[in-house]
């Protein structure tokens, strides 16, 4: 008797149909989950409980599993350092000689800078506190580029905080829970970073696409960028502080301007999370959303009523200057 003729074969059709129905139900559920998920919620504190819980579980596991690899790497570096100590020493001596000249220049420039600031009465940015963290997982696919860092809300980290390696900007925090933060990399397809070209001060938006070199979009001005120009954060929009090193501009194979990231110079294993507060964090978004704004009345003026102005004394009106309620804008240069 062939297997096709056996009586159990009759069970095939109903089970196949049931499996098909289950497949369709699961597919519809998945599509519904996908449609209900919004990546823009990364910008708020509303990170989501499933992500928070999974990050909390994955971070210590990733930390433990990556420990042997990290220790092996450190041992290999130690052995390599031992064998290449002479050449390394020679290179460092040359570097030191060059750096000593730069140190003198830097001291002179700092002195000049301080005098200019004092003369202009500029207010400088306060120093930004930082938290250090180690990267414990790393996703590098074309559709998501993010990492988990083993420091979280207990260190004062909040969504939106910029993340830097020793070489440059890595990304920003998009989710935080106790003991772990998720860092959205500059290369992620959802990442947008306001940047500027150091040489020309031209603004652009650094847009990730899942590849190693994000694109420079919305470049303004004529000939705003050249090969090898340094790219820094512009500070526009208040998400990032101004002047963080991002990378070097290069012309891509697709004839678009791209950036070779400074953070790619070395493995990003330790990061510094800048506890920088952007405008969205300073404002209490949840509180603002709860405030009920009355609907405008048709025909009513949208401006507040004018305060009654007392008639000025006749004698004084000719000689007393009117004191403005706010200081007038002057042409004084603002701090850059």
């Amino acid at each position, binding site marked *: 008797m062939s297997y096709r003729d056996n009586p159990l074969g009759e069970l095939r059709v109903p089970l196949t149909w049931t499996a098909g129905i289950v497949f369709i139900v699961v597919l519809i559920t998945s599509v519904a989950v996908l449609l209900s998920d919004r990546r823009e919620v990364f910008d708020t504190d509303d990170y989501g409980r499933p992500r928070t819980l999974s990050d909390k579980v994955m971070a210590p596991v990733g930390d433990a599993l990556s420990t042997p690899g990290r220790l092996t790497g450190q041992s290999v570096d130690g052995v390599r350092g031992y064998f290449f100590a002479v050449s390394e020493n020679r290179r460092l001596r040359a570097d030191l000689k060059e750096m000593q000249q730069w140190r003198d220049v830097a001291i002179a420039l700092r002195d000049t800078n301080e005098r200019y600031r004092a003369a202009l009465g500029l207010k400088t940015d306060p120093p930004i506190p930082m938290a250090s963290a180690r990267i414990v*997982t790393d996703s590098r696919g074309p559709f998501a580029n993010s990492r988990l860092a083993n420091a979280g809300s207990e260190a004062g980290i909040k969504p939106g905080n910029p993340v830097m390696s020793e070489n440059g900007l890595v990304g920003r925090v998009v989710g935080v829970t106790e003991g772990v933060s998720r860092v959205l990399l500059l290369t992620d397809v959802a990442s947008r970073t306001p940047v500027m070209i150091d040489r020309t001060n031209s603004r652009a938006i650094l847009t990730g696409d899942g590849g190693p070199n994000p694109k420079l979009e919305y470049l303004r001005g004529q000939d705003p960028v050249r090969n090898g120009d340094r790219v820094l954060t512009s500070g526009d929009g208040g998400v990032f502080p101004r002047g963080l090193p991002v990378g070097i501009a290069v012309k891509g194979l697709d004839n678009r301007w791209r950036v070779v990231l400074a953070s790619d110079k070395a493995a990003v*294993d330790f990061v510094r999370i800048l506890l920088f507060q952007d405008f969205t964090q300073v404002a209490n978004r949840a509180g603002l959303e709860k405030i009920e704004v009355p609907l405008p009345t048709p025909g009513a003026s949208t401006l507040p009523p004018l305060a009654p102005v007392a008639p000025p004394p006749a004698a004084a009106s000719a000689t007393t200057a009117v004191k403005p309620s706010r200081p007038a804008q002057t042409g004084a240069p603002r701090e850059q």
Partner: protein
Amino acid sequence: MSNSGAQPLSPWRWLGVPLVQVVVATFVFALPLRFWGFSLPEPLFALPVVFAWAVIRPSMLAPVGVMIIGVYLDLLWGSPLGLWAVCLLLPYGLVLGGRAMLAGQGRLIMWAWFCAATALALGAGYLFTMLDAQNAPDPISVGWQFLATIVLYPFADLLIDLFEDADVRFR
């Protein structure tokens, strides 16, 4: 003589164990390790398993398993929740629908089907990501992930060999 063919196939053996293996393998490849300056590739370990599940037999549990793997990938990689569930379910449905055509095919043809399933998963990922982020992902990165995934077909072949004849109702 073995009578294993007449016994019902335990879901834990052909669904549970591969699912756990996918979870572990994907996590290991998500560790921040570098070898000679290069980081590990990021293949879709889930795809050989999803492909094999669809070839072995229709099942009510398999789509749920595919969804669990997809949600896990989203949580691990930080992609929008549901993205990989949909991207894996589509090739699962394709292969499940084409089971009759796949029956008795040689390894090369099966590999070609696996490549098509991988292309469908990544194509769907490309489309959904483009719609969600309003920005097209880098095709070269997608190509690298495609190449890193299609070389995993031997794992699917191994799973199919192990369980294809395990349930006589679906031979």
